[in-house]
């Protein structure tokens, strides 16, 4: 076993010298972190410009106003938590486009339990378990039946959407939140930090530690980057990917729980575009579409960047009718800019 840059290998890659393996892993680790640094720099620059503009013209560009900051802090975690799940799965080389249906189904189950008088924490736990089980099903279909994950989860997307209608019907479900449950799902710390930010911080730190410091992280990157070599190195690729599927399902459910608690409503037809937006967040955050690369920090910054784009457009009064078009165009610009600068650095 060799230890390089605090990343352990379970076994040396067959046919390679220890020095060559060391260099490869050093490069890989550097590239993983570098991709996050690039997007962080881009976002930092844009954020700085926005802050300066807001300080200079607070009336016409209220970027730093309390309602705008709080809304951003409430909205970014809901998207980003789901994107972390999707991103981790993409690092493992797979996709999950059923996250939107999972988001709705899991939160609907929670809402129904609470509305019928059930304990809210139990309801929340049931929702997360539902999300995990959905991920397990997705993973099993993909890995054991050997169906491409995009296709398998495209199928389960419809199944879980229908499941929502089956358990509840087409009407929206409202439910009360109060006490400690309300505080930890939709409350605010010190009067302004939303609980969802705390959740994102905890989830982000734990996930990042697992990816960067734990053996499982290495296995995940290896499984996504080069599954054959990973298998040859003794990595249990299928098990690793299955865990990633379960994690993605759990994160979709968690995002659904927090979103539902925020507005006390679950709408069966909501979150239709969540899968594509979550994938866009992950890609902009540096996750590779072909697997094996990406960071949690990058995903979080990617989510913040996509939110920033819409936020700025609305604050400056972009034509509302064409908002989706503007946001889409700027996402492409941001992703292209990031890709170009990243490729230049890698050369």
């Amino acid at each position, binding site marked *: 076993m060799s230890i390089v840059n605090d990343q352990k290998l379970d076994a040396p890659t067959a046919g390679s010298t220890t020095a060559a393996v060391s260099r490869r892993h050093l490069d890989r680790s550097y590239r993983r972190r570098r991709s996050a640094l690039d997007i962080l720099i881009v976002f930092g620059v844009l954020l700085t410009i926005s802050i300066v503009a807001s300080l200079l013209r607070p*009336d016409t560009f*209220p970027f730093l*106003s309390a*309602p*705008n900051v*709080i*809304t951003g802090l*409430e*909205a970014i975690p*809901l998207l980003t938590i789901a994107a972390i799940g999707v991103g981790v799965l993409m690092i493992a080389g797979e996709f999950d486009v059923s996250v939107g249906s999972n988001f709705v189904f899991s939160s609907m189950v929670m809402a129904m339990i609470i509305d019928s008088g059930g304990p809210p924490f139990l309801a929340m736990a049931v929702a997360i378990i539902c999300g995990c089980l959905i991920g397990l099903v997705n993973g099993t279909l993909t890995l054991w039946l050997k169906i491409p994950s995009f296709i398998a989860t495209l199928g389960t997307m419809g199944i879980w*959407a229908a499941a*929502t*209608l*089956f358990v509840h*019907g*087409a*009407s*929206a479900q*409202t439910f009360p939140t109060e006490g400690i449950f309300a505080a930890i799902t939709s409350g605010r710390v010190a009067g302004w930090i939303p609980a969802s930010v705390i959740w994102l911080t905890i989830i982000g730190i734990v996930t990042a530690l697992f990816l960067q410091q734990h053996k499982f992280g290495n296995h995940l990157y290896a499984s996504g980057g080069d599954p054959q070599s990973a298998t040859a190195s003794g990595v249990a690729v299928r098990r690793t990917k299955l865990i990633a599927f379960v994690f993605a399902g759990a994160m979709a459910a968690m995002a659904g729980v927090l*979103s*539902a608690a*925020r*507005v006390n*409503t679950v*709408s*069966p*037809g*909501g*979150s*239709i*575009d969540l899968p594509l937006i979550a994938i866009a967040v992950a890609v902009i955050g540096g996750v590779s579409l072909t697997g094996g690369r990406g960071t949690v920090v990058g995903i979080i910054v990617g989510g913040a960047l996509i939110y920033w784009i*819409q*936020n700025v457009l*609305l*604050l*400056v*009064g972009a034509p*509302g*009718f064409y*908002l*989706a078009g503007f946001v889409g165009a700027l996402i492409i610009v941001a992703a292209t800019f990031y890709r170009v600068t990243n490729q230049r650095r890698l050369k």
Partner: protein
Amino acid sequence: MITLSRRSHIRSSIVAGAVAALVLAGCASTENPAAPEGAGSTAAPEGAGSTAAPEGAGLTGGESIAGKTIVFQIYTGPDTPFWVPAVNGAKAAADILGIELEIQYANADDNTQVNQIQTAIAKGVLGIATSLPNAAAGKAVCEAKAAGIPVVTFNVNSLEGDQADCVDAFMGQDFVFAGAVIAQRMVDEGLINSGSQFFCPVELPTAIYATQRYEGVMQVLTPLGASCELVGVGTDPAKARDTMVQYLLGKPNTDGILALGAVPLSQATATASQVQKPSMPIGGFDLSEDILNDISTGKIVATVDQQPYSQGFYAVMQLGLRAQYQLFPSSMGTGGRGLVDMSNVDEVKGLVPDYR
């Protein structure tokens, strides 16, 4: 490595085909879930499938239509709360008529809608009730008429010219008129004046309901010198609220919210609070529990209810009467000038979401 012989291939294919056929046969005989207690004769709110004709039901006299099928086709998917009362109304009419109701969803796909209509023609159904947000299914509708199958539209009917003659009647609200009604109500209450700048959020800004409601609103606002900006906020309540908050922060001179759909209207009060303008005038369209609660507390002035239950009920009933007594279907405007406001909100509350 496992290889399959040619014989094994054929065997596997036959087995797979048989399984698929069995599954399809099972789906074709799907029954709706049981009606909840106390809900009346048709209370099952869930979606696609057939409702079997109850024994002893049906009208007397005329041609017997007992057990025959009427197709009730909804353009979008089954996950839209708006269709719950429409479907319930259709089922109530089907029960009274003693016919079998086949509920179909086109999932907002034109080709699917056309295929469903053509399949209905091939099956020789009694009649077709459908919603037509665009003219893509116009030709199929005319084929139905040519085949002797009457077609009644509900909620929205986009057919014009010769194709419009293929539809016997329309059950629905004039969205333009409704937009003018709610806008005028807010003007009459002194909430919209000359120079007022309002915010018109809607789920899907290019959908026909959105554009027509907006047209009606502007018919009142434009002569007054007021304005309302149309912005799409999507179908997710949390995301809609975020977009609406950001819009109001970017346009601090906005005087009020006139939401053109249930999702933005349900989030309007919270949005106004979040931008620290809790007394901002709010009005809009459609019903939900949140909206009715906000009307009760005076935070929402009034909402338009296009009465989807009526649309579903009368669409099916008219087709049944056509078949049984040869009574030609007649168009009906649902909702009229009626608004749900503080004066009548308590009467409506218990009826959402299954009947209003």
